[in-house]
């Protein structure tokens, strides 16, 4: 080992400072820079530096770090490549921030870990509580004495929280956060399965997952800057004209030009029909999950069927009749040409999974997938435009005969006019309410009304000169999102709480249009116009409104059995498959690969809805979530579970699963504000949802660009107690200002931010009196 290089020295007393040949060579005789006084200084410095009291690491910290490394190493080893299927049916992207009600739904199922005498089980003080005070410590009670260091080493809280762990006894762990938790946030305390080890060697049957929510605080004041949400940039498109979610959550984009998925290297060429003149609204329809091949080309008015299996759209050949097509969304099977019309802006809507409504010559027609066409609802007059929208259960329809906005009750034939209605209204999911824009004095206003008359309710009045548009209901019909186009600013996204009428802009981005709210409620997709004509497809990660809690007996049973399925799917047990099969209805043809879809850590029961009104069959939406490791990012899989709750015991009749979707991890910006700084600069305050790794907060992760030029010499400070980062610039020239927060910013769990955050301002905030 004589040749082995020596690097550094180990623990214990530092070596005695003897003569260092380097120093002698550097400062001593024979060197060009020979200087005896420097050599003496160097030796003295070396001696003093060596007497620096050794910084003894905390043994607990050293052990903790080793255990954490080994836990991650085990994850890496377990997570080595395994085959994962791709599905034709792709579900919506992202979990976003789980709604509190989602947490409440999941609790009973997570706690119900299948038990055995040897298994570890745990209860948490915050269990079942979506409104935990932000100052509260979390107490975990185990059913048997635990290996304390192992538990703590395997414990993670997301969003990341710095905490002290205390063990009053071997079965009780108290987690005391170092700072108040963030209000109105869903947290997950998790303990790796093999880290949750009892002294007798027992472990739980699955990873310990304890979700809970913190109590909300009063909503932040509206105005400038608005409440902000994280934005995920998904794709870039030329000539984008449409964006819509299918009922199962697949996001569809219509664009007449190239589409580039972020993360890909090559643009998708436009479909081959270059000689076709461009018609407004016509383009190729893409699934955002697979932009390589369009689902349909030269399409207009595309709309997915209720079961998300078919796509209906028009083609508008120049000088010819418009043709209605239906094509399978999954790409298998031939497309159908079902009908034609001379209308230049024809409409189509799905009546059910096998029939469609469309307009032709002012009449409403119905066509089945077998091509049979019949005139229906002869009392409905659509006018020359043929424009209509129909409620989800086809109980009512909006048309505009002779330019008079009219609502038809399709069951009775009665009609109601809606004076002042502008554009086309939107129906809520149940079809019992529609929202529309009309004038109130000289201002545009947003109204809701029942479909059969009655006094409309005004939800909000836009300021003078502001144009409203792009109305879209949230999944639970609790909120309406809209665009507000302010002269001199641009079109921004707002949302209004239908119950209270309170509203706020939810993004500072401008140029927004074509809103689409995901059926899972956690995302709001939109197109953002960019300079040059292209559009960016963006997805706002929402702290989503809670779905309505299940309260009916049958619905509760359906939710129970779907949650039991999901719990077994994340349980590492040789009997899981057998237990799952006991939940299936006789004859249910479900591929075994769908029963145990892979390596997931937790799940959320997102919603349960009857397949038909008053039906005992329910469709339960489940999100299976896989936590991030060093090998793969956090991801989720959407699963739709069909449950027949009509029999003596609820049974699963079908399962469909989407593709694996990457989830944002790491710190998330929950709010940001900008103010004038002394001397003509700007001061930004950015609040995060998690405790940050202070080492990563700095110019390497936070930048400000003014008029395209990077702003130097930022003063960046992190306040751990409030999870706030302040950024102060020097004097700024006038011009658009963009603050960007990106990797390597990390939380205390060492997870980097995955969704870069940007705050764009038209110019530096103006100084106010006294500032």
């Amino acid at each position, binding site marked *: 080992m004589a040749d082995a290089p020596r690097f550094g020295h180990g623990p214990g007393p530092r070596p005695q400072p003897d003569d260092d040949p*380097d120093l002698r060579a550097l400062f001593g005789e024979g060197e060009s820079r020979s200087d005896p006084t*420097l050599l003496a200084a160097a030796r*003295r410095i070396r001696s003093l530096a060596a007497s620096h009291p050794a910084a003894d690491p905390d043994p607990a910290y050293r052990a903790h770090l080793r255990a954490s490394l080994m836990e991650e190493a085990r994850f890496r080893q377990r997570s080595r490549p395994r085959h994962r299927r791709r599905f034709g049916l792709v579900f919506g992207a992202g979990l976003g921030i789980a709604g509190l009600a989602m947490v409440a739904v999941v609790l009973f199922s997570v706690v119900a870990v299948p038990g055995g005498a040897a298994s570890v089980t745990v209860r948490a003080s915050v269990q079942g509580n979506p409104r935990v005070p932000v100052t509260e410590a979390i107490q975990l009670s185990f059913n048997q004495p635990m290996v304390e260091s192992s538990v703590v080493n395997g414990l993670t809280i997301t969003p990341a929280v710095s905490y002290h762990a205390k063990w009053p006894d071997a079965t009780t762990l108290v987690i005391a956060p170092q700072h108040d938790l963030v209000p109105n946030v869903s947290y997950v305390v998790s303990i790796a399965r093999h880290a949750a080890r009892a002294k007798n060697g027992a472990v739980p049957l699955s990873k310990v997952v304890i979700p809970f929510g913190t109590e909300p605080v009063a909503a932040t004041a509206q105005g400038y800057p608005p409440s902000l949400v994280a934005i995920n940039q998904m794709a870039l498109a030329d000539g984008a004209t449409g964006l819509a979610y299918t009922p199962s959550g697949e996001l569809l984009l219509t664009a007449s030009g190239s589409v580039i998925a972020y993360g890909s290297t090559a643009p998708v060429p436009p479909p081959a029909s270059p000689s076709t003149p461009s018609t407004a609204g016509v383009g190729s329809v893409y699934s955002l999950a697979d932009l390589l091949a369009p689902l349909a080309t030269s399409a207009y008015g595309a709309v997915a069927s209720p079961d998300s299996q078919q796509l209906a759209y028009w083609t508008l050949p120049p000088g010819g009749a418009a043709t209605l097509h239906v094509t399978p969304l999954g790409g298998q099977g031939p497309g159908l040409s079902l009908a034609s019309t001379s209308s230049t802006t024809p409409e189509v809507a799905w009546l059910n999974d096998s029939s469609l409504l469309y307009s032709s010559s002012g009449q409403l027609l119905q066509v089945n997938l077998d091509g049979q066409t019949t005139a229906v609802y002869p009392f409905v007059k659509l006018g020359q435009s043929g424009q209509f929208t129909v409620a989800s259960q086809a109980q009512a329809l909006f048309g505009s005969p002779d330019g008079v906005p009219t609502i038809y009750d399709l069951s009775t034939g009665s009609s109601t006019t809606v004076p002042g209605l502008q554009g086309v209204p939107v129906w809520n999911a149940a079809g019992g309410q529609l929202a529309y824009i009309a004038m109130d004095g000289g201002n545009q206003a947003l109204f809701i009304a029942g479909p059969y008359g009655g006094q409309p309710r005004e939800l909000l009045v836009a300021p003078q000169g502001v144009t409203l548009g792009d109305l879209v209901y949230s999944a639970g019909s609790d909120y309406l999102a809209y665009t507000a186009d302010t002269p001199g600013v641009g079109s921004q996204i707002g949302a209004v709480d239908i119950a209270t009428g309170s509203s706020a802009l939810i993004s500072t981005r401008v140029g927004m249009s074509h809103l689409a709210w995901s059926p899972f409620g956690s995302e709001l997709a939109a197109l953002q116009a960019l300079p040059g004509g292209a559009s960016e497809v963006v997805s706002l990660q929402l702290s989503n409104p809670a779905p309505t809690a299940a309260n009916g007996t049958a619905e509760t049973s359906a939710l129970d059995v779907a949650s039991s399925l999901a719990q077994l799917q994340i349980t590492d047990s040789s009997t899981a498959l057998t237990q799952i099969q006991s939940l299936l209805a006789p004859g249910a043809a479900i591929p075994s690969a769908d029963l145990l879809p892979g390596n997931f850590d937790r799940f959320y029961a997102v919603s349960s809805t009857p397949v038909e009104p008053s039906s005992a069959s329910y469709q339960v939406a489940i999100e299976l979530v896989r936590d991030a490791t060093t090998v793969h990012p956090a991801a989720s899989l959407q699963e739709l579970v069909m449950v027949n709750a009509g029999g003596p015991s609820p049974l699963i009749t079908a399962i469909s699963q989407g593709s694996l979707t990457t989830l944002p991890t790491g710190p998330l910006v929950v709010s940001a504000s900008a103010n004038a700084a002394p001397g003509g600069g700007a001061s930004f305050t950015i609040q995060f949802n998690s405790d940050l790794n202070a080492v990563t907060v700095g110019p390497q992760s936070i930048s400000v660009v003014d008029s395209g030029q990077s702003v130097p010499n930022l003063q960046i400070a992190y306040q751990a107690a409030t999870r706030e980062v302040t950024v102060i610039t020097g004097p700024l020239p006038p011009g658009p200002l963009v603050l960007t927060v990106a990797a390597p910013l990390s939380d205390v769990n060492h997870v980097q931010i995955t969704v870069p955050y940007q705050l764009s301002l038209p110019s530096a905030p103006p100084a106010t009196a006294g500032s």
Partner: protein
Amino acid sequence: MVLEMTLPIQEEAALIARAQEDPEYFGPLYDQYFPQIYRYVASRVRSQSLAEDITSEVFFKALRGIGRYRHTGHPFSAWLYQIAVNAITDHYRSRRRTEESLEQGAELSDPSTPVDEDVAQRMGAEDIWALIEALPEQQRVAMTLKYGEDLRLAEIGVIMGKSEGAVKLLVFRGTATLRQRLITERRGPGEDPPHG
């Protein structure tokens, strides 16, 4: 005397190869190199909690990156030091430093003035390290590795990605600056430098 703390090269190579195949074998590497990496980081950041944060970052990065590690004839610890140096640099980049004035201070040093040994004696290790902390980034790294870790100039060059000659210059300038600072300490901040 420098303690022999580097693993025998074959043993180290075998451990690395196994860790690359199965990350759980990273443990022995961690056990071997934690003390010196922690101590180095702690000597640089002077805060136990920050030292722990950075040391954690170093070893997590090493674990995550060990698959990409290639033996280039230098010990594994050189790679860990490299990661640590970068992590600390990232940290200090977030704290604005007035490097220009210190660089100028180095130019103003008077090599003819002897170091007052008494002053140096009165100064403690904390003071010396505070002066080292005030050096420009590159000098600070080189000085810390030289005086704090007793590494050879060639080894420091490997860690910093510089030639041995460049490291020599950094250590020379850093030492000269420190000596000048010692002189200033001796005179007191308000006193004029000697003439002639």
